[in-house]
């Protein structure tokens, strides 16, 4: 708790363009830094300011977006009349917020279980990953499905999780030649990251399997992403028959 407080106390506020502020807690990816990010985001959610449009949590900080045309002379933020300048007003507000954060007992993080059909047509690089580490494919599956993962942030593409916790012994460099189209739901490894592609995109990840779960759900306006920052993640192995059955059901249960 104290180390989280220290991160919050030492936050740096930095302008990114004239319509956003980066609240930075560190420069390194770390679970304590992640807790500070979560605590600050929760506080912002409770205490947004007028003119704030949204915020984005990342590995080491939170970027707060605002509309500079709406800050001037309204609501909580009274900018310095000599400057007519919204950045200072936003920074003053955020600093006040940072100094008063009560770190509530954190809610038990959600745990989301992701079914994966490993190998075969769904995981065309599984054998290559196994070979790279001098293991069998089954050992790679066992290690991948046995990991305890944390969703640090959502970004890059709709519903794409940045996941930490891949066992170091199966970390694998990206493919030398990226694929032009990686199917939606593909589960892959890239360096020390593992993750799931929510959309069909080009990419260089090593594909070890595929999930029938939809990570991006545009029809759900409240929660368009299956995962959110702070979730715990588990992968578990399913057979191809189970994969097809889940896919045909269309309505895979939510966590």
């Amino acid at each position, binding site marked *: 708790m104290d180390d989280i407080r220290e991160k919050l106390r030492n936050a740096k506020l930095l302008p*990114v363009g004239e319509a956003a502020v980066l609240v930075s807690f560190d420069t390194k990816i770390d679970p304590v830094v992640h807790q500070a990010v979560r605590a600050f985001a929760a506080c912002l959610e409770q205490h947004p300011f007028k003119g704030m449009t*949204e915020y984005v949590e990342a590995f080491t900080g939170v970027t707060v977006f605002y509309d*500079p045309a709406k800050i001037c002379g309204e609501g909580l933020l009274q900018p310095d009349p000599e400057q007519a300048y919204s950045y200072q007003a936003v920074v003053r507000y955020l600093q006040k917020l940072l100094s008063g954060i009560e770190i509530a007992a954190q809610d038990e993080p959600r745990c989301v279980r992701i079914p994966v059909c490993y190998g075969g047509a769904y995981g065309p690089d599984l054998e290559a990953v196994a070979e790279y580490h001098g293991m069998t494919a089954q050992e790679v599956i066992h290690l991948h499905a046995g990991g305890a993962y944390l969703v640090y942030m959502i970004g890059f593409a709709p519903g794409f999780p940045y996941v930490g916790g891949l066992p170091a012994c199966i970390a694998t460099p990206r493919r030398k030649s990226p694929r032009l189209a990686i199917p939606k739901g593909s589960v892959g490894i890239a360096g020390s990251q593992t993750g799931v592609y929510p959309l069909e995109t080009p990419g260089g990840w090593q594909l070890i399997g595929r999930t029938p779960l939809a990570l991006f759900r545009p029809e759900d306006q409240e929660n368009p992403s299956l995962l*959110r920052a702070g979730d715990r993640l588990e992968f578990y192995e399913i057979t191809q028959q189970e994969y097809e059955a889940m896919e045909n059901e269309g309505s895979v249960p939510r966590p």
Partner: protein
Amino acid sequence: MINVIRPGSFTTIQDSGRWGYQAWGLPISGAMDPYAYAAANLLAGNQKGAAVLEMTQEGGMFHFDESAFAAIAGADMQAVIDDRKLPNWSSFIIPAGAVLRFGRALKGRRAYFAVQGGIASVPVMGSRSTYTAAGIGGLEGRALLTGDSLSIGDAAACRQPPYSMPEKWVPGYRSPWELSMVLGPQTGYFSEAEQQKFFRNGYIVSDMAGRMDYELAGPPLVVSEHESVSEASGWGAVEISEGGHPFIVTPDHGTTRGFSKIGYIIQADFYKIAQAAPGDKIEFIAVCNAEAVKRFRGQHEIFKALAMLLRPEKHSI
């Protein structure tokens, strides 16, 4: 209904953007040229945020079942209605049965067509903006195709006479484009010499210039400190790729990326990015944050003044 006879090279439905979902990985999307977009909607008598057509490089050809009041702004695509030439940055009446035809962009790259009532596609997460990478918004999440039909929303009761935007508020579109930017937390990742190179040399807009980002051609930059962890990226950020080439981030960007950012183009200059065509020259200059806000508010003042000219009765008290 508006019937698409010919869609043009890349025409999408856009509005003021899908705000509030970046934390879920959804970019803002929306009109790439916020200035021409807002002007077209004002001229057409629309509320802020109404959905319009954004046409890129070459415009389309549209048949109208019903009469409509509409406006165009942005790149000059030589609009013609039943063989009558229409002035740009103006509103006009479209008679039922008429055909509206656009050609290639003579000046600029993106043109906005606003119809009174707005394009009535189904909103997704609060916005009608098309985001093609995820296949959402607009019409089936894609660019328009021949044979598509677009519904027009209920028009506001007020009817304005056709009107042309005063010349002083019509931006000039010409290369070289001077883009003002504010420096950011990572500017120091580039040595003084590299920064000087960036600001002194011009860059050329490459063919890879779309709604996700613009790749620029020119002298590559060396990043001296390179341990960027992925963080929020945003419209207008100027990122330097591993190969040292600048990318300007545009509205369909990935919400977080890991490249070093040398700075951020100011919002008041976003319209220039949208209107810069491949082959155009770009020059960057640094301004302070307060100047950026001043110029952004300046554009808001123009829209307030334009609204006053168009609908004085609403603003007279």
